[in-house]
Each structure stands twice: as structure tokens, then as C-alpha cells.
């Protein structure tokens, strides 16, 4: 794919990843009780490649009856197999899954990029290796849970319903499934409707791993499928990652019930740059913070705060860096910015761009041509926005950065915390005492100092305030899938 660049020294030859090895079926059924079964209502929906708008496959839409079947399968597996199994055996299954993902990493990375639009460099180097690492890390917990919470008794919860978003489809499945299984629960997982393929491939992998029937069930569908799962009477726990709006709907619909709930929701993270920071590294960190995965990241550093004394230099360097981001074919190994996940999301992002311009803020978009087919958005920067503007308050979930300046530490802490969200934050300075001043005062579940958007299975992830509750990953994340009496 030839890129028509207006001003870019890096005229790299295309380096597309070969897809010959990868097989996507024409049609996918629901994975219930250890096998693929057609949906009761015989309804299917399309999943498309957002970079080409080509249809990739037909995927089953699970209705209420299918959800019920899946929950029953999970209950049966919990009662008869999984809760009775010696923990070390459980552990071995999960280790096996980790290994199988590593072996099939390339295939998973390609499908992730085709179905979701993210650059192959990210799916290959981030999503898939981290997914394998999550299974590997949690596998080892299965027979050590008694050591995690001193002087407390721990036990599994039962059947867990999990609903995941489209921005990290395989990785989110791993974040959800691995700890749930390690803690002795069985699972009904619903992937997002625009990105179901890697989860369905994962189902195939579970069969290869010999995972007992019904321990994990994967049901595809849209919001109504998720709702049926949430409202099912035999679910012990719901774990949801997605928008704050949907998270609140789920919490309301569980009101008065004993179903446990953890929510990992939206964010509007502050990324704070002090004048004494290593500026070039900070520019790189800001770019990684907001343009990674097209900005489809709940913890994206979408609010940039730059100390006034360096703001013009910083903006100049940032724009220069933005101009060198390569946008295009997600399967090209040189690509930095892939396709927007869906047409709907592209429309949402564009409405925010219009809102920002209407508010009179200066908008800069990187100097790059976009392909004719598919869904694309140039890396975008709004400079000197107001604290109360829509683009600095609401989560856009796209490659759109809203910048403000500040003069004092107190001012920037107030501005950074002045949001209902509290998922993540970033601080850039070479002064250690300043870092700890900020990292202790920022109200966010994850704080990156002199780095951004780093993830690890050993590192707990989750938000304060309206970014949700509960943690995923690390020792603390285990508590989301255990009953702890202490």
C-alpha cells in the first residue's frame, strides 16, 4: 500500500505481515459446554476489517436462551469439575493455555490487527505477549491463594460473567479469564461485537488445551447479550470493562442483589510535564500516552498539562513528532497508527473534533494522508483548551489530545484531579521529591512517572472514583475473584 505523504522523510517501503498462514472461518458459533453450538435463534452478525471495510466472518448472536445455556454449562463445570479439582491441576491447565498462546502468537496478533484495526507492531509486541503472560502469572497463583491474604480464609465465588471491550480484545479476555480460573471460578465471557474473532480463536485453543467442558464459555453478541448475562439469576459475579455509562447501567440493574461486581471503566488521564523533565523523552511519552492503539485506551493520557515556561518548545516538538507517525495498513510493520475500530467510533471521535473546533480551540492534525477505504483519524492535538470544555472533560476514546498549561504544582494537581474519572495519570520530571509529591496526590489507580501506558500481569490495574472499582492483576487483583473472610 503506497502512502502519499506530504511531508515525511521516512518514505519506508511497505512491510506487510503475511496473512497466508491465518485461517478465519466464514461462520462462528457459540462456545458453550466445550463445543461450538449454533445460536437458538439462528441469528448471526458480521464482523468487518475496519481498515478495509471488508466482511471477515459471520458471528453468532447469543440470545437469552443461549446465555442461559452457557451459565448452566458453567455452573455444571463449577459444581462437578473445577471446584473439586486439586488446585495444582487447575494451575497446570492455565499454564498450558499460556504456552499454547505463545506458540500461536503470530496468528493471534494478525487476527487481532485484522479484526480490530490496531497496528501489528502493537498486537505482536504488546497485546499477545501480555495475554500469554497473564495466563502464565495467574496459573501459578491457583495453588497459592492461601498465602495471598494473611490470616484470612479464601474461597472461589462460583460462576463469573465477564463482559469485555473492543480495544484490547484478546488481552482483556486474558485479564478476565486467567484470574477467574486461577481462583477456582468458571466463566461465561462476552467479547465485544466488533472484535469477537480472537476470543473465538481462544475458544479453539481451550479445546486444544483439554480444558474441561464448560469451564470457560464464550458467547458473542451486542449489548442485549451482555444485559441477559448481567440479569441472569445464577451468576455469582459480574466483571465488566467498558464505558462508565454502561458500567453504571450494570450496577443499577444489580441493585439489591448479592451478585458481586467489579467495574473497570473510562478515564481522562492527566499527563503532566514539568520544565525540568527530559523533554524529548516526555514528548515520546505523551505520544505513546495518547496515540497508542489509536487512543482507544481507557487509561490514555488524553489531558496534557505542560508547565508554561516550556509550552511553546514542547508544542513544537510534539507536532514534529506527530508528523512522523505513520498512519495506515495495520498489518504493515512500520505502521504507528492503525484504523479506528468501527465506523460508529469514528463518528463519535469526529463529533468531538467538531465540538473542539466549535469551542474555538486551535486544532492541529498530523501531516499525513489517510487511505480512502476504512475508518481513520489523524493524530490530533488541541492546544490551550479550557478546563471546562467538552474535549477536556469527556472521554473521547480516540487519538485526540487536549492540552493546557500550568504555572504551579498546586494548580496542576487541582486541575488533574478535577474530573470524575480516576484511572491513571502521568508525571514527567527529573526531580524525585516532586514525583512522589504528585504520585501521592493524584487521585488515580495507576500513576506512571517518567513513563506511560505500561502494563504487566503482576501490576494491579483499576480506577478511583467513576473509573470503576476493583483491581485486575497482581496480588490485589485476586480479591476480585475470591471470597475473603478475615
Amino acid at each position, binding site marked *: 500500500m503506497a502512502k502519499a505523504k506530504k511531508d515525511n522523510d521516512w518514505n519506508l517501503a511497505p512491510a506487510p505481515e503475511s496473512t497466508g498462514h491465518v485461517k478465519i472461518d466464514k461462520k462462528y458459533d457459540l462456545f458453550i459446554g466445550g463445543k461450538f453450538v449454533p445460536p437458538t435463534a439462528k441469528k448471526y452478525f458480521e464482523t468487518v476489517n475496519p481498515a478495509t471495510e471488508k466482511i471477515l466472518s459471520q458471528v453468532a448472536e447469543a440470545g437469552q436462551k443461549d446465555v442461559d445455556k452457557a451459565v448452566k454449562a458453567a455452573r455444571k463445570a463449577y459444581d462437578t469439575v473445577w471446584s473439586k479439582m486439586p488446585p495444582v491441576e487447575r494451575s497446570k491447565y492455565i499454564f498450558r493455555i499460556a504456552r499454547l498462546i505463545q506458540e500461536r502468537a503470530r496468528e493471534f496478533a494478525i487476527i487481532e490487527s485484522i479484526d480490530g484495526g490496531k497496528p501489528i507492531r502493537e498486537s505482536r509486541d504488546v497485546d499477545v505477549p501480555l495475554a500469554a503472560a497473564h495466563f502464565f502469572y495467574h496459573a501459578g497463583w491457583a495453588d497459592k491463594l492461601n498465602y495471598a491474604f494473611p490470616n484470612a480464609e479464601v474461597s472461589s465465588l462460583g460462576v463469573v460473567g465477564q463482559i469485555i471491550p473492543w480495544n484490547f480484545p484478546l488481552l482483556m479476555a486474558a485479564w478476565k479469564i486467567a484470574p477467574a480460573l486461577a481462583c477456582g471460578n468458571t466463566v461465561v465471557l462476552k467479547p465485544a461485537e466488533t472484535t469477537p474473532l480472537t476470543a473465538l480463536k481462544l475458544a479453539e485453543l481451550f479445546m486444544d488445551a483439554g480444558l474441561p467442558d464448560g469451564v470457560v464459555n464464550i458467547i458473542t453478541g451486542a449489548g442485549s447479550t451482555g444485559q441477559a448475562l448481567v440479569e441472569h439469576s445464577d451468576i455469582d459475579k459480574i466483571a465488566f470493562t467498558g464505558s462508565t455509562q454502561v458500567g453504571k447501567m450494570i*450496577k443499577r440493574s444489580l441493585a*439489591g442483589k448479592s451478585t458481586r461486581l467489579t*467495574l473497570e471503566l473510562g478515564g481522562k488521564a492527566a499527563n503532566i510535564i514539568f520544565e525540568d523533565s527530559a523533554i524529548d523523552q516526555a514528548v515520546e511519552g505523551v505520544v505513546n500516552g495518547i496515540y497508542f492503539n489509536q487512543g482507544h485506551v481507557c487509561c490514555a493520557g488524553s489531558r496534557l498539562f505542560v508547565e508554561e515556561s516550556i509550552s511553546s518548545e514542547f508544542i513544537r516538538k510534539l507536532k514534529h513528532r506527530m508528523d512522523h507517525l505513520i498512519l495506515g495498513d495495520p498489518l504493515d510493520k512500520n505502521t504507528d497508527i492503525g484504523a479506528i475500530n468501527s465506523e460508529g467510533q469514528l463518528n463519535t471521535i469526529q463529533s468531538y473534533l467538531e465540538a473542539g473546533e466549535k469551542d474555538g480551540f486551535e486544532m492541529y492534525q498530523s501531516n499525513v494522508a489517510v487511505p480512502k477505504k476504512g475508518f481513520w483519524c489523524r493524530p490530533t492535538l488541541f492546544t490551550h483548551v479550557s478546563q471546562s470544555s467538552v474535549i477536556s472533560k469527556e472521554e473521547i476514546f480516540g487519538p485526540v489530545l487536549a492540552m493546557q498549561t500550568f504555572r504551579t504544582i498546586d494548580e496542576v494537581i487541582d486541575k488533574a484531579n478535577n474530573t470524575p474519572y480516576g484511572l491513571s495519570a502521568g508525571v514527567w520530571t527529573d526531580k524525585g521529591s516532586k514525583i512522589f509529591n504528585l504520585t501521592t496526590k493524584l487521585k488515580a489507580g495507576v500513576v506512571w512517572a517518567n513513563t506511560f501506558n505500561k502494563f504487566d500481569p503482576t501490576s494491579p490495574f483499576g480506577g478511583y472514583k467513576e473509573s470503576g472499582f476493583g483491581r485486575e492483576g497482581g496480588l490485589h487483583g485476586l480479591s476480585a475473584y475470591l471470597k475473603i473472610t478475615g
Partner: protein
Amino acid sequence: MATRENSNLEVMKTYKLFIGGSFPRTESGRYYPIRKKNGDLLANVCLSSRKDFRNAVVAARKAQSAWAGRSAYNRSQIIYRIAEMLQQSEDSLVQEMVSLGYTPKNAKEEFDYSVDYLVHYSGWCDKFSQMHSTVNPVASSHFNFSNPEPMGVIGAFAAERRALIGVLEAFVPAICGGNTVVLLASHKLPTCSITLAEILAISDVPGGVVNILTGEREELLSHFTSHMDVNAFQIWDASKEESFVIDQNSTENLKRVRLYKSSIRTRLSPYRILDLQEVKTTWHPIENISGSGASY
């Protein structure tokens, strides 16, 4: 006891609210009577309003960051100081519990346990975070750690049938961990909460860290659970109807909700402190300077 001797009329205490370190009456001017077993009036206690609650949240929010910013050692000493002040009030508090209908034996038992409870949690202030923080061995070259932080302002409904320990449960683990609290005392047994407030006022507890209201659960529940500047809500012995309202109302700002059952000997556990903590994870790169493995 109302007239011990004709020549020496007892001076009865006015029970007020405890907000921001002061003892105001309810702004609503409303009250409800608490009577002894024999029907004599023990006190007219305040029937708090939504406005009283909102004032208390303002006081609690104002006090929170400074309280969380104190050293754990200092918070520990202040909670120990509460135990000291409580101990010296034994006679009057046990007497008050008896007036509320406790047997002398039960009153003494709950009182003694209350002192022990404070001493126990005093010691947790500078230990629970050590036990529940982690340094996480991430695969990349970063130093990564997770530690508990206070949620902020906690709303609480104390246990209905425990005059003294019920009040302590509703705020002690919370303030151990750097939170501030607005609590509603038992409706039937409210007076000990205000006597305890008088003890807090001489125990070096900064104003606003603990705020105590008396009144009706039903009237105040929706206000406690829907207030946008309250980070978490905890309640003892919630009914089904109450827990539905709590879940519905707490959704708007995703208030953390904790439901507990009361017991005579409430559990002593650092997990009660952790129930009101957020986990924060911090990352920083580690620079690897040379191939020999040395770095600064």
C-alpha cells in the same frame, strides 16, 4: 434519678450533633425524645436534616487531606488517646448505657470491648499498609509498587442495637486509614455517640475527621447514598429495601458500598481498614547504565 434530693437537682446534659469539631444543634430545630426504662426523659436528641448531613460532608472533606497527610504514627497515637479518654469515662458511659436499657453486665462488657477495640486499631495505623503493599516484579525495567490509600469521605450508618461499639465500628477502621467520616448513630440508642463525640473532642482528633449525627435512617439514607462528594458508604444490618436504595443511589458517583452485620464482638481485622482503601500502583523506569549490571 431525676430528683436525687430536692435541694440538689441534677443538671441534665443537652445532646447535640458533632460537626467539624463543634457541637451544633440541628439546623432543622427538630428533636426526638429518648426515655429511660421508667419513662423519665433521658434526652431530647437532634433529629438531623439533609442540611446537617451536607454541612458534615463539607467538614469531613475539608479535614480529609490533612488527616491523611499526618504520619501513621501520629494517627496511631490519636486513636490510642481516644482509648485513654474513653477509659476515664467508664463510670458515666456505663451508667448511660444502663439508662438506655443495658444490664450493668452487658454495659460493662461492651464498654471494655470498646476500649480494647480502640487499642487494637490504634496499632494498625502504621502496620496495615506494610502488610498490604506490594513491590511488583514487572517484566520490564521499571520499579513498580502498589499501596493502599484512603478513599476519602466515608458515610456510615452505625449498628442499631450497639450503643457504643456500633459507633466505633462505624469510624475507627476508616480513620485508621486516613479517611474522614460522617456517621449516623443508632436511632434507638443515640446518646452514647454524642458522649463519645465529647471524648473525641478532647482526644486530639482534628475537627471534621469524625462527624456524628443523630436522626432517622429512613430520612437520611437517600441523602447519604446519593451525595456526590461521599466516596464510600458503609452500613450495619441493612434491610433488603435499604440495600436496594443504597445500590441505586450509589451508582451516580460509583460510591463504594460496604454492608456488614453487627455482632457483640465485632471482628478485629485489618481487612476492615482495607475495605475503605483504594490501591494505587506507581511505575518508574529503572535505568540500566552498563553491561556489567551496575546501575545508579
